[in-house]
């Protein structure tokens, strides 16, 4: 589809907006509707759109399957690592209160890190899904 100029231009214009919106949903999740799951899917949607128009090999040039595999694991490890950290700091698993000097800061930091982990894993997994199914014809 990359031969159609309209599609090509529109895709290139919308992808940064999609990525920015994903960031907004990710980092505004503390205050409004949002969070890692939604943000991860929106973030991956930008890559999927890119793949639909320019082909899956173009997506592979941007993020190699090896990196995606790494990110999948890292996101989960970030999530679990925060939990282990709170345990080491003397709280229960995922007790964010222990992370900051006062509970409010702790909760903020904790939920931020955990949602970041979720976002990374979800985005990576969604792109892996897309590449695994759509990339079979290449």
């Amino acid at each position, binding site marked *: 589809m990359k031969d159609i100029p309209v599609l090509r231009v529109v895709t290139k214009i919308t992808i940064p907006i999609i990525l920015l919106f994903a960031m907004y949903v990710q980092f505004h999740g503390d205050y*409004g*509707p949002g969070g890692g*799951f939604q943000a991860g899917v929106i973030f991956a949607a930008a890559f999927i759109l890119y793949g639909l128009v320019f082909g899956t090999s173009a997506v592979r040039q941007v993020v190699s399957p090896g990196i995606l595999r790494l990110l999948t694991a890292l996101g989960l490890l970030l999530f679990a690592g925060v939990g282990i950290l709170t345990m080491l700091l003397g709280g229960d698993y995922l007790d964010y209160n222990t992370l900051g000097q006062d509970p409010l800061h702790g909760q903020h930091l904790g939920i931020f890190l955990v949602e970041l982990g979720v976002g990374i894993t*979800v985005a990576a997994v969604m792109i892996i*899904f897309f590449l*695994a*199914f759509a990339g*079979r014809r290449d």
Partner: protein
Amino acid sequence: MEVLALYNYWVVIFLMMTGFYVVIASGNLVKKIIGINLFQASVFILYISMGKVSGGAAPILRETIQTYSNPLPHVLILTAIVVGVATTALGLALVVRIKEAYGTAEEDDIHRQDESL
């Protein structure tokens, strides 16, 4: 009128039975996955409609609002949706592998090939 007032349950039951029927009646493996999806979607609606509090606003803390809808079922079903996505992806991946191994995605053909062994 009481029957109509519970319309969300009718939607749930209709979707659930449609999905269930597709799973049982269809011989195509991809269609079965779609049936499973419909079946799960009905449960999503069951949960989401359960969280509605009449007159309640979206559960975002504001000073002017007194009644909120219950956000917990939504959170639960977000998890279930993620599980559903994973199930669908895995199911489709299996269908792709089955198609590669058997050359077909029809249940009857697969059974015939297995029996001839």
